[in-house]
């Protein structure tokens, strides 16, 4: 390598900040926690096909796990705290790397074309922000019931049906889930790389798994609102 050096132009190295790879590890580990939750959440959602009784009972069960050894909702709150911590860590790492990337290229290219990047990898940042906004609204809608058409006094099953009978709510849900699916497609591959578990031999398998997993999860979630919309569940 030959490098042109120009006296007086040598950049004084800035003080080392948090290691960028460490931030990626935080991103990967918090992402894995959230993915594990998503699997459980999707399976739980499918209880809606077992009927109103079964779905509401499942919802009640989540609040009573561990009783009477521990007070009501203890397990639920432990899960919630872990998830909140994971979301905060994931968000912190993302924002921090996003800012680092912006600092790393202050002057943009006049023309720049992608050669290899997937649509999924390109939508990680804004897609992630939209998914976060969705999650906040989603909790207010179906968990708290504050913005639900049926209000907070209804049962979980009624809230679900009331929400998804509205095509606009369903459309937002579908958009967020598609973005989430793409987020997972790139995220699973990226986390495997970040944790140093990928290699040339495994690369195809990891990517195929990421696509299959993301598709399965997205379909598993989307089947519920569409069933309500088309009156299969009501």
């Amino acid at each position, binding site marked *: *390598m*030959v*490098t*042109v*050096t*120009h006296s007086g*132009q*040598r*950049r004084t*190295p*800035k*003080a*080392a*900040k948090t*290691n*960028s*790879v*460490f*931030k*990626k*590890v935080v991103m990967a580990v918090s992402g894995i926690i959230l993915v594990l939750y998503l699997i459980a959440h999707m399976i739980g959602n499918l209880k809606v096909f077992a009927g109103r009784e079964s779905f509401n009972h499942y919802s009640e069960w989540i609040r009573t796990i561990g009783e009477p050894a521990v007070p009501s909702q203890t397990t639920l709150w432990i899960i919630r705290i872990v998830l909140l911590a994971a979301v905060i860590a994931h968000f912190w790492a993302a924002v921090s*790397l996003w800012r*680092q*990337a912006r*600092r*790393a*290229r*202050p*002057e*943009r*290219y*006049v*023309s*720049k*074309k*992608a*050669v*290899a*990047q*997937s649509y999924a*990898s*390109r939508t*990680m940042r804004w897609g992630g922000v939209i998914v976060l906004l969705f999650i906040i609204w989603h909790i207010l809608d179906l968990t708290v019931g504050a913005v639900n058409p049926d209000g907070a006094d209804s049962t979980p099953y009624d809230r679900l049906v009331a929400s998804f009978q509205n095509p606009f709510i369903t459309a937002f849900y579908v958009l967020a889930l598609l973005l989430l699916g793409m987020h997972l497609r*790139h995220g699973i*591959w*990226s986390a*495997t*790389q*970040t*944790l*140093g*578990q*990928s*290699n*040339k031999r495994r*690369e195809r398998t990891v990517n195929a798994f990421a696509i299959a997993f993301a598709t399965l999860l997205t379909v598993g979630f989307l089947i519920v609102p569409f069933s309500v919309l088309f009156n299969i569940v009501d």
Partner: protein
Amino acid sequence: MRSSVGNPADEKRGMNLTLRIWRQKGPSVKGRMVTYEVTDISPDMSFLEMLDVLNEQLILSGDEPVVFDHDCREGICGSCGLMINGTAHGAGVAAPGRTTTCQLHMRKFKDGDTIDVEPWRASAFPVIKDLAVNRGALDRIIQAGGYVSVPTGTAPDAHAVPVPKKDADAAFDAATCIGCGACVAACPNASSMLFTAAKVSHLGLLPQGQPERNDRVVNMVAQQDREGFGGCTNIGECSAACPKGISMENISRLNHDLLGALRAGARPKS
């Protein structure tokens, strides 16, 4: 395919091209794209030879020639490197082939094309003038750990330290990195991860690289952060633009080594 074999008159007809080139007088001056026309460009010319033609034209008309880095012009030194039509080394034009700017031939373009030419853009690669950037940051990453310390003296016997074939091959693949900086230029985050990973892999896979393996990876990663490169998000633009096809598995290997080194208590020198 051009039908030049049967028709010698065709051979003589060169291409007329419009070039939009980034002109910048110095590191702290604002630059801009300037449009030039070149005529009668042979399809057999390399991209740099085409720029040579432009520069001769500029000198004759009393203008300043366009500054760009180059040396071997055979794709092995890593000196040249231009963003051509939005891709590093014109990777988008050369695809599916891999190339350096000096080995990109004008036959890849069509008569009447408009070609955008820009320097590598990263805060760690300040523009010196026009299309030439300072890639000293990559040298400092190497200085931070991209070496093996060996006593000088007679060269040891080549077969004194056995190396498994698989490791030797992977190390050699990584060692083909020419340090051109295309990975940084192509990366949406302006990350130097592929470059650093190639060096970490190259030495970390060989027995001679083991004593310094942990310190190497933590210090090189710390230096790349210090230089102001972005973080890696495993998008893969780097590997696609790399003239030597350095693969993404090297990045995974760097991460693996780094996590192992941090667990083993290795910390970067401040």
